[in-house]
């Protein structure tokens, strides 16, 4: 299957996908915080499940997550994974930023260093040669 280059429309779809992922994770975490269970044990497991099954935030997060899956498939049908993945890996930066601003989580410099390594690593993975491709483009 031949896929084309990155157009503005596809770029915006990828950004939308990143934002969707960030919002989904944020909503799920926010919903989970509401139940107040920070340590799941066999004793409070039923309470955990019941509390979250009734949480609109958790459901909203999961709905956006599933919707995002379809946006991603549309993106992949239009551009190569080597183009989509680096733009998509920015969610590894977006999510901790959102966690800092909206959930007041503390992200240490060492954790940021780890996050940046992950994003760079994903970039490398996505630039690897495709099967049947003679030479990777420079």
């Amino acid at each position, binding site marked *: 299957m031949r896929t084309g280059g990155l157009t503005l429309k596809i770029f915006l779809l990828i950004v939308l996908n990143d934002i969707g992922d960030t919002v989904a*994770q944020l909503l799920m975490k926010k919903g*989970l915080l509401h139940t107040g269970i920070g340590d*799941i044990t066999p004793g409070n497991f039923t309470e955990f499940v019941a509390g979250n099954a009734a949480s609109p935030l958790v459901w909203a997060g999961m709905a956006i997550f599933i919707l995002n899956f379809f946006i991603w498939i549309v993106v992949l049908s239009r551009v190569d994974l080597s183009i989509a993945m680096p733009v998509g890996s920015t969610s590894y930066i977006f999510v901790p930023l959102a966690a*800092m601003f909206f*959930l007041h989580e503390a992200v240490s410099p060492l954790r940021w*260093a780890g996050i*940046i*390594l992950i994003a760079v*690593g994903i970039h*490398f993975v996505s630039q690897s040669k495709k099967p049947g491709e003679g030479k990777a483009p420079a």
Partner: protein
Amino acid sequence: MIKVLVFVIISEIWTAIGQVLFKKSVNSLGVHSLRGIRNQKRFLKNVLTHPSIWMGLSCMVAGMLVWLMALAQGDLSLVYSAGSIQYVMILFLAHYLLGEKIDRMKFIGTFLVFFGIILITIS
């Protein structure tokens, strides 16, 4: 901390198996053009009647549920970043189960991801 990571790893194992099952099933369908509504309809019908796709989806759902348990017990910035362990798992699963080649770029990238996760967990 260790408990959160165990939940993340269990969740990502399910997700990774789901991905491999997806890839295995679309591989077995053969490469067809996806241009045009007729080809797309045929592809969708083949995919939805494929048992491995449904097995893969079930794995994804299981992964999602364990993900919520991880997310409940750890900071979002930790759980989300640690979730990138999936790249490491997929590299090996794709190699051993799907016969995909690991080239130098993929190996370096996956190593960087792994090193990043170590930094996150000791922070």
